[in-house]
């Protein structure tokens, strides 16, 4: 039986879909059998980020309503044999499926896959409840901004009330320069407010935008700092103790990390 992890944030635009795609791909790189599930019905993006948009035949709603079998709706990744994606419907809205239906689908997927990553829509309404219905664990993505941290806090509160295991935090889009000058929230500050375990920090990286537009997850490119960060998160999910990335860097190059420090 595999493990279902929901990636959520509350606020939109902090990088849920990017994180889902990259962690999923990184787990596949490690040889794991992975399925990504997009629950953002009506605003699906995961397929675009993964570059699988043109391969979609059926979607989540079709499976829930019994128009096709689960296996028919799964889209196989073009790079990995053991990476699949279950796309969301684009023509319906969040209420097209119920949390119970999603839970059944996730349960079915967990029999087949070692990791099921669920991409959650923004917000705390029906779509959120759908996404967390079948999840065992959760990852909360935030950026170093007050608004994003506030929403992450709200989401953590809701997750703590649900059956999902206590969430792990990813701080995305960090700009070390701005933190140093005091214009961006420190990671320490964020952790003090949210008070949950940190599972990874991801630096702001132009490569992520390029990669998303070309439908090629960033993790595939080992020259990108964000790629290393996502690979580290995947390894931590697998249980490795990987030190946090040191974001202080010499100007112009991300390749030289001066020092590393331990987790926790």
């Amino acid at each position: 039986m595999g493990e279902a992890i929901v990636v959520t944030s509350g606020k939109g635009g902090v990088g849920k879909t990017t994180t889902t795609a990259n962690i999923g791909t990184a787990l596949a790189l490690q040889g794991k059998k992975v399925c990504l599930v997009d629950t953002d019905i009506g605003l699906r993006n995961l397929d675009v980020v993964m570059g699988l948009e043109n391969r979609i035949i059926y979607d989540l709603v079709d499976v829930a309503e019994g128009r096709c079998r689960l296996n028919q709706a799964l889209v196989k990744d073009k790079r990995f044999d053991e990476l699949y994606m279950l796309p969301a419907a684009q023509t319906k809205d969040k209420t097209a499926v119920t949390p119970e239906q999603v839970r059944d689908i996730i349960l079915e997927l967990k029999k087949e896959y070692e990791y099921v990553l669920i991409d959650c829509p923004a917000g705390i309404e029906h779509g959120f409840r759908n996404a967390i219905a079948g999840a065992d664990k959760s990852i909360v993505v935030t950026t170093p901004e007050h608004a994003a941290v506030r929403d992450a806090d709200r989401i953590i509160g809701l997750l703590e009330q649900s059956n999902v295991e206590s969430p792990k935090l990813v701080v995305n889009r960090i700009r070390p320069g701005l933190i140093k000058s005091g214009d961006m929230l420190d990671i320490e500050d964020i952790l003090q407010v949210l008070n949950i375990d940190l599972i990874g920090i991801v630096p702001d990286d132009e490569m992520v935008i390029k990669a998303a537009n070309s439908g090629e997850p960033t993790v595939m490119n080992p020259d990108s700092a964000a790629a290393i960060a996502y690979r580290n998160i995947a390894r931590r999910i697998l249980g490795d103790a990987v030190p946090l990335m040191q974001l202080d860097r010499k100007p112009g190059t991300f390749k030289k990390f001066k020092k590393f420090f331990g987790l926790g």
Partner: protein
Amino acid sequence: MTVKSKHVRIKGIKDGLVFLLDDKCPFEDLLSELRFKLEHSHQNILTGPIVHVDVKLGSRPVSEEEKDAVLDILRGQGNLLIRSVEALEDPSVVDSDALYMVSGMVRSGQVLHHQGNLLLLGDVNPGGTVTCSGDIYILGALRGMAHAGVEGNEEAIIAASLLSPTQLRIADIISRPPDEWETRESSMEFAYLTNGAMQIDKIHNMVKLRQGLNVFKGV
């Protein structure tokens, strides 16, 4: 019509009956169930010779009229002789000085309310709310909103290990903390009202405000 016997329980004792009335359900439900039970069940117990009855209302706060309403129903049954009516007082009213302790975090969007005085072991995050009819003491960081004395008690105070709230309210007074609060030395502080204005002071100065406190003077 079937009624599950959940609010009214009738117990037989050596020399009569005890009516145990639930103290959590709505009062109206209680009355209708009591009426139903007397009319429709236990026919052979409730008719016949005179029986002594003890009524136990639990810790429900009841007015005299409500008490009479219960007794009227029982009196309607000719053979029931009411011997005693017992009502425990509401525990929160009895012990208004007690400190109720809760641990955990009040996150954005969550509301913690307590009737009485509250001691929270944990943080209140921005967007989180703590309201209380008495004092609020927080062993942790207060970054959200705290409202002490919600029912109008202007004597109420708000104390926190780290007092950097988005807003403070005591009784009807609302105060936005000045920005310099954030950068003040981090000692434990509390907020109180004097002449309708919010004041902040270090926790050890609370003695000046609360004359009745037990003060430790050393041995």
